[in-house]
């Protein structure tokens, strides 16, 4: 960490060169064989993230285990390096957002907005996830072994979201590219106002959203689903329905909203 004088106030920069106020790296990890483990129970959210970044960026340790994260928010955010992180327990809102590269394993549950704007890498969540999981995600794989809340992958622009349990309402709302594989049931308004992308659902769909229509299953779909199942050891894929964009909303028309509903 480097101290910077800014208008007379002492400001510190973290190891990525970004400003971090009022805290220092706690240096509490046990390091052996290039692997680090630390207990987060007594640390603040900021200290946990500083410790993580210090290990990964400064000390070059690319395998970190965090014990007792205690459902705290905003953990593992903005990690922009290839590395392996394991959270032993549940974490809160905005978990692992804005990441580019890491492979993250969360053994508990996550709150709302996990992996928001994820660029690449892999995140595996053993428990359930809250709403807005994988919002605006651009790449990488996100696997939730439990169920997810509402609006999973809202505004998704790439990557793959796999949900082993049920998904809530407005799943894949306004998805622009990428794929979602839902092995349980999907709530009302699946794929509402979607632009593009593919949705695969093994369970029941409560209702389709505006401009989301059944799609034609191709060999490429089979290859993709089988590959993802193989990578994550999910067994053999069940039979699934595919949904895509109906492209009716691509063009503006002069119909009244009530008439447009009839057309769609």
């Amino acid at each position, binding site marked *: 960490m480097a101290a910077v004088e800014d208008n007379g106030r002492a400001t510190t920069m973290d190891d990525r060169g970004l400003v971090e106020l009022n805290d220092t790296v706690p240096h509490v990890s046990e390091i052996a064989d290039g692997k680090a483990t630390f207990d987060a129970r007594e640390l603040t959210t900021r200290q946990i993230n500083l410790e993580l970044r210090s290990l990964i960026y400064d000390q070059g340790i690319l395998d970190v285990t965090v014990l007792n994260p*205690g459902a705290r928010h905003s953990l593992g955010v903005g990690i922009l390096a290839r590395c392996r992180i394991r959270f032993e327990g549940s974490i809160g809102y905005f978990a692992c957002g804005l990441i580019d590269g890491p492979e993250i394993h969360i053994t508990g549950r996550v*709150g709302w907005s996990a992996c928001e704007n994820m660029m690449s890498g892999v995140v595996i969540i053993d428990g359930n996830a809250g709403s807005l999981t994988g919002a605006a995600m651009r790449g990488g794989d996100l696997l939730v072994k439990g169920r997810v809340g509402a609006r999973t992958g809202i505004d998704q622009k790439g990557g793959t979201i796999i949900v082993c349990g049920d998904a809530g309402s407005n799943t894949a709302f306004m998805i622009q590219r990428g794929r979602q594989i839902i092995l349980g049931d999907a709530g009302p308004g699946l794929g509402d106002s979607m632009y593009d992308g593919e949705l695969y659902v093994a369970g029941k769909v409560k209702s389709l959203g505006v401009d989301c229509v059944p799609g034609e299953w191709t060999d490429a779909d089979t290859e993709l689903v089988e590959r993802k199942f193989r990578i994550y050891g999910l067994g053999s894929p069940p039979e699934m329905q595919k949904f895509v964009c109906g492209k009716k909303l691509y063009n503006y028309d002069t119909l009244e909203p009530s008439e447009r509903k009839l057309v769609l």
Partner: protein
Amino acid sequence: MCGIAGLIYKNGSTSIGDDMSRMLQSMKHRGPDSTGYALYRPPSDDWVMHVKLADVNAERDFDFTQRITRNRGEVRRRLEAEGAQVLETLDTSPHAMTVMFSFTGDDLKPLADRVEDIHGTEVLSLGHTLEIIKDIGDAQTVAGDYGLKGFHGTHGIGHVRMATESDVDISGAHPYWAYPFSDIAVVHNGQLTNYHQWRRRLERAGHRFQSECDSEIIAVYLAERIEGGDSLEGAMHRSLEELDGVFTYLAVTGDELGMAKDELAAKPLVLYEGDDVVALASEEIAIRAVLDREIDTYDPYESEVMVWQR
């Protein structure tokens, strides 16, 4: 934004005051303006009434202190005039008091109305087991001021408020009691868009409101339904049809705790169901404040209503 929390123990009473204050303190970031508790003691035949004697923001004029002291005596006098036997009064804060009394009548409305007729006072809660405590400040401050650490009970709900549509004041703080129905309270996270319609409708039916806050509608709405013969669960199911907006709310009666979520699932709620306890909160971090171990929690889906008995 606001944060809500609920806790119900199935095997008798515990330190619910301390538990709820820890849950709410961990969600201080969701609303630092005011904090409120609705806690339930084990049932008794006597009544507990919480009375606000003045607004926190009220002008402190020359005879403010004298007026408050006078009003404390007046509350007691009026209760006795309505046939209640006052057992104990507590000066819980500089601007609020608690009265324990026995009362054999059926109708609570004249009692509550007569107390509220004293200028500046407001009945915050009235019931056999319900106590609503709400004030400006975070959970620890309010719990400390009102001595909630030692409160033993079976269930309760709480709220941390970020004031968005009405003042930072006790009147705007949750939970809301369903005046004048005993032992029903509600906390709410969200906005109701048909508030004015419902307020006019319920006012025409003779109900009165303590505040300008949309959440109060839910409490009075539920109480009216329950009074009309609905179960809490039935009334909550119906509220999903009749209330518009985005909301997650918790409702409590003398022996039940329920949650309801709107059809968009727009507001968060995390649920933990154990053998002896059910805990709900806007964030898991609040549940972990009372259950310090790895637990299996999930978010209820849209249009879900669940009710638990103590």
